[in-house]
């Protein structure tokens, strides 16, 4: 019995060591397995699984990404499928919480690219490469209709109070926006953006801050007892995040976006999804 245990322990240790070394070894260079070449011959790019492009997305962000009856729907999701078609690949979505998407792309192994209403920010640009932007969005803050303390007229000051709790999505530009412009308020972070709205409903927070298209969509679809009191034209550009180790894939995605932009598909998708 003892001997068996020892051998087992030893083999586990060897495995662990091998795994560590293996990870460390392949850390330096981009993965070489699973390659696919574009029809246009714009250089070879690699994806995790040959013939498939996997996008990491956090489906809590209508009208960009959302799960309806288990289906991924929204502008980003349609765009992802259109890009995959352009590249001649199968499209696959990987559900990752928003604040985990950029780290997942940096780490690799889970998805080829991040497609989840990700705004280009200098901080994120330090970690990943961004494609050509496909949509521009701004920030908005919504409160309950019966909230008389925070109104459209006084929102900028009323939101910046110590007694105000603002619900934000962890790792989002809404979180950064609220932290910068309402530094006195208390921020309550949620992994899912939809939960921010539920938190306002539940009185766990007084306001919710996030991208305007999503705020408006959420208010129209589910929370008609909340209204927008503050908007700011931050002009954030949404783009697809790709690992810095995979410039070939970035180039291919950019080429696909360009084609979709030129042939009007992108505009069609935008008008189809933005009600």
């Amino acid at each position: 019995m003892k001997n068996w245990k020892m051998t087992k322990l030893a083999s586990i240790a060897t495995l662990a060591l091998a795994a560590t070394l293996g990870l460390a070894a392949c850390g330096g260079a981009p993965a070489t397995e699973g390659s696919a070449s574009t029809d246009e011959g714009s250089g070879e790019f690699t994806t995790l699984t040959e013939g498939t492009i996997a996008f990491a997305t956090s489906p809590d962000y209508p009208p960009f990404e959302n799960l309806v009856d288990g289906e991924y729907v929204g502008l980003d999701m349609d765009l992802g499928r259109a890009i995959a078609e352009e590249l001649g690949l199968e499209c696959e979505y990987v559900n990752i919480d928003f604040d985990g998407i950029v780290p997942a792309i940096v780490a690799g192994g889970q998805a080829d690219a991040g497609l989840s209403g990700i705004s280009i920010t200098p901080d994120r640009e330090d970690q990943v490469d961004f494609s050509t932007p496909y949509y521009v969005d701004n920030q908005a803050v919504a409160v309950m209709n019966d909230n008389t303390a925070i109104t459209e007229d006084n929102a900028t000051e009323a939101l910046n109070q110590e007694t105000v709790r603002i619900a934000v999505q962890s790792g989002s530009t809404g979180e950064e926006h609220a932290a910068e412009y309402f530094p006195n308020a208390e921020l309550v972070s949620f992994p899912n953006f939809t939960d921010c709205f539920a938190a306002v409903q539940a009185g766990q927070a007084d306001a919710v801050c996030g991208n305007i298209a999503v705020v408006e969509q959420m208010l129209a679809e589910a929370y008609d007892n909340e209204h927008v009191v503050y908007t700011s034209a931050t002009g954030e550009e949404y783009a697809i995040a790709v690992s810095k180790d995979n410039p070939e894939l970035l180039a291919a995605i950019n080429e696909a976006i360009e084609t979709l932009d030129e042939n009007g598909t992108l505009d069609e998708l935008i008008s189809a999804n933005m009600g």
Partner: protein
Amino acid sequence: MNSIHHHLARALALVALVAAGSIACLGALPAPACAMETVRCTGRPNAEDDKSAIQGATESRITLETSLDAGEGVEQLTLHIPEGTSFSTDDLAVTMLTGDDLMTREEVSYTETVDGQDLVLDFDKPLNDAGHLSVMVYGVYFPQAGGDIQVAASYVANGAEHTLENIPTIPVVGISGTEALSQWLEQQPWVQSWNENRFLRLFFDPTIMVTSFPVVLNGFFMSIAVVALAFPLGIPVALLLAFMRMSKFVLWRGIATTYVNIVRGTPLFLQIYIAFFGLPLAGINVPNFPLGVIVMMLNSGAYMCEIFRAGILAVSKGQTEAARSLGMSGAQAMFYVVLPQMFRMVIPNLTNEFITLYKDTSLLAAVGVMELVMYARTIVASTGSITPYIVAAVFYLVITLPLSKITRHLEERALGHRTRRRTPAAASAAPTSKEA
């Protein structure tokens, strides 16, 4: 971005022209109508432990937003950033926000020149639209010691120079010790070569380890506070449930059994969601922390109920009978004879339950309770490194490893206790079975 590079190229050609223009402006008389006003001047928060704090010696961004009247004809804007604060013109963003709700963005074309601490923007066309002008300067490093940073600005409109009044100061806090240590580490050759390996950088980046430690520590205290309250409070709940389950009355038995089955049969995660988003809808408003404690208490109460029930049933029936024969009432027998023995028996199981409960506090991250995992998450999101999760793991192990060791010790002692009472034959057999 492209336009900036484009303008950078053009900047050289225009330098002479700009210089001449500035001199001309200085000599001109102030125009009567000048109404460019400060809307806000902020720094981008960059601290890891406090999301709205701006700290020195760490990359930040200055945003200056001013309001303009129609026909103001602003030709040039000069930002004076105080000595000790460095900035870069990469990613510089200058935008006009127009329209009734200021929601229309227009890129402004300009040429920028840097003169010491002055950042001069010469607009290709004078700004004549009513609206807000927003200037974002990236790559800003405030002084390490912190302090209130006063940005000054002046502008040239219709040939006259004006000073922009009422610019609020930017409150900058001094850099924390760990942040300074992290920046020092970043300069060390061994750290640099360590981080060149992607695996090590992602999971064990020393610079992120030192900065995330104090931040995650806040979450550690929160997790400990939740479990330190929920666990002891869960014990009376569990005892009550255990007595109800062993009651002669069908109603009590039914209530307790249903409760225990529902709580044990559904995920804690779901229970947390229901409590946090459901209860307030029903008009019950409880702040985050007490609500977290209550949910964890009610959940662990159901699990501990089963531990206690099993423990009570395991106490030999002879004990109760002996106590009763000494004249004790049923309740007395239970409290003075059965329960003390039961508690001693179930301590290892209770410790395990404590460990489980402590680990399960991580689920509260999903509903905005700032505990261990949530703090780690926020740093992972801003740095793209997994290191903070590793730091969080250490904080869990600090509690769980010693406790498991104690449990094992207690279990062994309980086992040893029993073997002593056994017959010599059984006792001699025990060590062999233990070794297997």
